[in-house]
């Protein structure tokens, strides 16, 4: 049981707009800068700043995070056995779409970042789109073949995502 009154309070720097949960939590992953706390189906990430803020993360004013073994999310407070954090004002990380997306322009903008990484999905996609005989070896060959089949056989985007999640390709 966590004795709240004895636990030091940590200041919040920034909070994502979906960093809300409730009930008891357990740490999933921990480093000096990050701890992922699972509350039921939800994972809230507590991290030290500065860094990347995600919708379900809370950035706190600490140089390093202490060990955490248990946590409780009650109201707008996360109380752990090592520190407690009160959620501050949230940053709205919601994407607002108001115009028409220009895919051609997006492609042109992204093009400089396509580098010769040996990504199996690129190979699978190029095989799928252009039916070309692209070389791959070893374990990667099996993955490329599987990914290409998923791309080819999926009848819809939903089906494609479902197949990729099930097959665990990446």
């Amino acid at each position, binding site marked *: 049981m966590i004795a709240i009154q004895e636990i030091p309070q940590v200041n919040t720097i920034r909070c*994502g*707009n*979906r960093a809300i949960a409730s009930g008891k939590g357990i740490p*999933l*992953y921990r480093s000096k800068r*990050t701890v*992922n706390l*699972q509350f039921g*189906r*939800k*994972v*809230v990430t507590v991290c030290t700043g500065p860094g*990347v*803020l*995600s*919708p*379900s993360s809370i950035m706190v004013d600490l140089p390093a995070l202490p060990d955490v073994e248990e946590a409780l999310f009650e109201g707008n407070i996360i109380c752990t056995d090592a520190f407690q954090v009160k959620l501050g004002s949230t*940053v709205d*990380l*919601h*994407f607002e*779409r108001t*115009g028409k*997306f220009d*895919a*051609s*322009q*997006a*492609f*042109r*903008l*992204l*093009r400089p*970042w*396509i580098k*010769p*990484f040996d*990504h199996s*999905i*690129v*190979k699978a*996609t*190029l095989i799928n*789109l*252009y039916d*070309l005989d*692209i*070389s791959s070896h070893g374990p990667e060959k099996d993955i490329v073949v599987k990914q290409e089949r998923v*791309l080819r056989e999926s009848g*819809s*985007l*939903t089906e*494609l*995502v*479902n197949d*990729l*999640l099930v097959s*665990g*390709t*990446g």
Partner: protein
Amino acid sequence: MTPSGDDFILGIIALQSLAGRDLTGLHEIIRDYENPFSRTILEDACEGCFSEPLLALMTHLAYGIACRMRSRPFSVLEAHLVGTPSPVCFMPFIMRYSDVKTGSTDIFCKTLLLTMFI
């Protein structure tokens, strides 16, 4: 890319959000995803919420303008960050679902193929 392909899926969701497409089906699938950390990121994305670097990129791609977020628009493409998709994730789906398979895209893909894979 991650073993479970969650960054790939995140790229799909981001692109579908950019294109204004219905994400209802994806939400139902992601609900059953066993990895709670990845599931949280993907469910946030299905609700239209993304990490700062990805949101900055999406806003830039959508409007060609700088985002009010702290991230530079292309920072997500310059380093692999937790919870952000590989840039390569966007490519297949821009090509496949946005009807830009012709012209420079086509030439680019073949050049890519010649210089990288053969």
